[in-house]
């Protein structure tokens, strides 16, 4: 099972990706938007985990284009560039973020889960396992 983990801080990636790998998932990391877009084009993923850090005054950033097939969201990675990422419609997306304005995130429609930082890797892992099981049950 393929998971794409989009997170620019290695210190944040390390815990969760280790646990996911030990559970048997194949984890690909992307620390930049371009990287993420490229990987999404090449491989079919079963789950995408993304750290969204919305820019200040995030209302504008969530003015995403009207729904096409798929999920759109704007990502800003710390110190990096920001831009739109699009995932295929059937792939569940989990957002892990420090931004606690949940209303803002809520407009990014149909997320599988929103996980707020800080959270210990084990707890994040448990939640993601639950999502995977739910998605598999649905399929």
């Amino acid at each position, binding site marked *: 099972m393929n998971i794409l983990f989009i997170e620019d801080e*290695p210190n*944040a990636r390390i815990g969760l990706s280790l646990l996911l790998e030990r559970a048997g998932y194949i984890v690909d990391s992307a620390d930049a938007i371009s990287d993420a877009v490229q990987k999404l084009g090449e491989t079919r993923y079963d789950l995408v985990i993304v750290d969204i850090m919305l820019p*200040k005054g995030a209302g504008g950033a969530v003015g995403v284009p009207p729904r096409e097939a798929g999920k759109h969201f704007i990502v800003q990675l710390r*110190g990096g*560039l920001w831009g739109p990422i699009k995932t295929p419609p059937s792939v569940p997306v989990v957002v892990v973020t*420090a931004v*606690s304005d949940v209303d803002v995130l809520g407009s990014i429609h149909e997320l599988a889960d929103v996980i707020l930082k*800080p959270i*210990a*890797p084990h707890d994040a892992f448990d939640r993601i396992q639950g999502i995977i099981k739910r998605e598999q049950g649905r399929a």
Partner: protein
Amino acid sequence: MFDESLTTSLRRALSVLADCLDCPFALVDASGALLEDWQLPAMSDRAADLGHITAWAPVADHPPLSFLEEKDGKRRLFVRLHTDAGEVGFVQSGDLPATSLLTRKSRDNESEATARHLIAAVCQSVTEVSRQSCRQFDNQDAENIGRIAVSIRSRAEATLPAGKRSRFSLDSLPALPAEFLFDKDSRSSGEHTLPEVMSQFAGAAGCSFTLLSLAGDLLSTAGSGAQDWTPDTSEATTILLEAALLARTPGGHSGTWTQHGNCDSARVVTPVLVDGLIVAALVAYMFPPKSVSDHCPPSDLQRTEDGNMSANAARAEALATGLGSLISLLYDRHRAARDETLLFEALVRLRMDSIDVILSEACHAVQRILGVTECSAFSLQQDRVVLRATTASQLFVCGSDRPLTADAALGKVSYSVGEGLTGLAAVSNKLIYLMSAHQDARWSGRVRELPVDVQAMIAPLVNDSTGICYGVLRAVKPASHTTIPARHQRLFAFCASQVAAAIASYELTRSSLEGFRETAEHLQDLVAEASHELRSPLHNILSLAESYPIVPVNRQEAIARSLRDEVYRAKRLVDNYLARGVQGRGQRKYHFIKTCVADILAGCVSRFVGQAERRGVTIRTGHEVDGLPFVMGDRDGLEQVFSNLLDNACKYCFEQTEIRISGSTRSTNVIVSIADFGLGIPAYAQSTIFTGYQRAVEDQTRFKPGTGLGLMIAKEIIERHKGHITVESAPLFNDPRRLSRNEGFLTTFRVTLPRA
């Protein structure tokens, strides 16, 4: 025959009546020839309805003074005019419209009779006055006649017809207020009430007094038998008109013999005037008419042989005159006090919601209390050059080519400072009073061309303590013989200064509140930002801590180092936000000791090595830094400064580049430079980068959220050290160090500190 002066007087008087009774008039001589055919201005818009006034000769020789004639389906009113030479002609009305008071049939024909009597009485009075005092009927007389005509008419019928606009608005006619007539409170201040005063005079004069309102109603009576006499409308009209026309004669009164039953009684009429215009009439009767029996007892009031009144009658006359003047004076004082009280109350209760509200309420108060036709306020705009009309109480007459409604005037009419009287007031420091616009060259040309002459008070709105001028307040009323009384001018000036004080107070409050609100918002933003920013290092610490036991042993040291870095990262955030948010309270104290810059730099660098290495960035410190002399510095503060600068450099330098730290000495200063190659700071931003101002994140510069803070704090700390901090950022192309971008900037932060 008709002479010039009589004709002029009659014209003025009849124009007033035309306005009040909705009917034009003409003068016709005994043979029926039209002496004067004039379209009275008030009726000009209805000329088509009324038809051209042509002369009629009355067909019958009617005994009454006034009568109606009908011819060809049209009705006209005739009033005989008598002079010394006998009957000289008629005043003839135009074709009476259906709406005229004169043609409407009321239940008892009272209104028709009233109107006819009014016209007749006016004509008679005018003729009498013209004959007796050889003076012309002027504007003041017209004003007085108009007041009485409107009052009498309103008594005869409930209201004036809808849509009829008379110059004499019933609402604006003065009436002696109840508190003046019957005020018991004045007792406490030692003054007498009006009835008491009248009683005393009645006792002294040996007669009865009656005070009549302009509509002919009884206001107050004194003396025995006075209560029995109630004048009907005709008699009241005659009395009031006599009184009105007497107003212009100094010490005016009239002693008239009137016939009651078989006995003679005398009536003396004195006007009660305020500002030269009639507000009531005082009637003194020497002998109560109703209680006369057929057999008259001998009275003091006997004609002497030569037809003149007896000495007692003369004394009564004098006292009646005195009482009339006294009532005028008392009312004037009462009104002055009331105006002041009302104005003070209005000013105290000004709502301070905004400057416009303040000005608007003040204008309405002035208009209501000082009785001006309009009061408007002009605000001085930001440019301090233009005054713009911001509010007006009613019709805005001046300052434009034609009358505007208040809504149309707002914002459109303006003066430059110094232009016209309004502009002039803004630069002067006191009230300008203008008696007649037509005759005063200082007023702007626009106003001098208006058909109506006006008088005005204009006062600058200047705050006494600061001397700041906010604009101008202007009050206007039609010019007349009566100038605006001095006490009104004083009140107006006082009002202007109070309004200015109110505006000053409002602005002070608002700017304070603005300041407080900004501070509160700023703190809220800081707290929100700090909370969000701290979540990341905390999350990373958790992530690293849980990884430690499950990674291979050779990776554990790296994880431990990363843990330490993240904690310091959190510490930096705490320090920065604390420094920004708690100015004064809870702020750390600086301890200045001899400090080695090299040590501090080494410590900071070590904490960033891990973060830098991940992107292939190396941090190189020049050897000369070790040899830098000591500076007087606060160790934690300098750590914060260099950490923030390194943080900035690490964040924005390109991958695989080098951050270079160097140092030098110059006279009494030590200079440390931190240079990186990567995203730069555009020239226009270099001055603001230390002020915490953060631009939008659209372009790829060093303005990302959460970063402006660090530089701002660094600057503050360095300045506390009596040093300074600068930045240079210049493009550097074809640099061998750049590997991953097409262009980059060499950015150097330079910190200067005084030597120890």
